[in-house]
């Protein structure tokens, strides 16, 4: 009887441990179990220079959302952005692919616009600015072309 109690306690602890591990991996991996708490809009970039699914979206330097998916559409990058309901994006907002520091990771920054029209879920941010290709720029102006 006593032995059974011990085994039961160990079992319970292991189950609790597994639950904790699962919670941690979901939290740290920034995955969603039951749907997001926001809406999606998309933007088309001519070059995203290494942006990845899960990269952050910032407004005024504040992390507001995540890149949900990136696909190639007509040789351009079709990026789906996941934003919370509390963040409204105006029709003339501009989405930019930026780099943290000089060689850091890529993220998307949105500069809010002044239009009264708000982009509806599933809508598109028309104005985009691709990742700046620093190496390309340097080589262009340092060496020129043939």
């Amino acid at each position, binding site marked *: 009887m006593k032995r059974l109690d011990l085994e039961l306690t160990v079992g319970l602890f292991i189950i609790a441990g597994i639950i904790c591990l699962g919670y941690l991996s979901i939290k740290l991996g920034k995955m969603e179990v039951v749907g997001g708490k926001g809406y999606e809009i998309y933007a088309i970039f001519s070059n995203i220079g290494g942006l990845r699914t899960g990269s952050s979206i910032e407004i005024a330097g504040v992390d507001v959302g995540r890149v949900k998916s990136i696909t190639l559409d007509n040789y351009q990058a079709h990026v789906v952005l996941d934003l919370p309901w509390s963040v409204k994006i105006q029709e003339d907002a*501009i989405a930019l692919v930026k780099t943290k520091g000089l060689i850091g990771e890529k993220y998307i920054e949105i500069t809010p*616009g*002044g239009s*009264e029209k708000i982009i509806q879920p599933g809508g598109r941010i*028309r104005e985009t600015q691709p990742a700046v290709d620093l190496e390309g720029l340097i080589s262009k102006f340092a060496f*020129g072309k043939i």
Partner: protein
Amino acid sequence: MRLTIRLQEGILLFLVLGITVSGWAGEPMDQIKQTTDAILSIVSDPALKVSSKAEERRRRIRNAVDQRFDWEEMAQRALARHWAQRTGEEKKEFVHLFGDLLERTYMDKIEGYSGEKVQYEGDTLEGDYAVVRVKIITKKNVDIPVEYRLQKKGDNWLVYDVSIEGVSLVNNYRTQFNSIIVGSSYADLVKRLKAKAAEK
């Protein structure tokens, strides 16, 4: 007899429609091309290069640019969320100051034109919006990609943003204006713009 008339009408209609449709496809690019050609002809006109005509040359360039650029839309986009808080009078003044700021910044570059080539790469139309892609080839053979973003207003396609090497003009000013307004005030921004206009 009646049938032949019908047929002729039909052919005529087809021709007219055919022409309008084919003319439609590249309308934004045609209009950009027109303006660019007009400016290039002013800039390379030897009669206007004399210093006594400098004023007139400037005015004519500005006129040509004014016809294609929607200053109000650009100023509104650059001021972004601070635009709605301005009164009608302030908006008018700001559009004027913004136009002058751009003139001041870019006029020297236009006037310094020395035979750079402009190559038209194509345009993308989407409802009332269009993007025209152009390449400017400098004398050193470096090509600079430029993108005009246009919006249809009436019969005209008007530019509301220009991207050079992928960097948007509106976004550049939007971030600067925003940090000035948030950091101090709108009045300070106007003061700075006016000071800049009085520099020369």
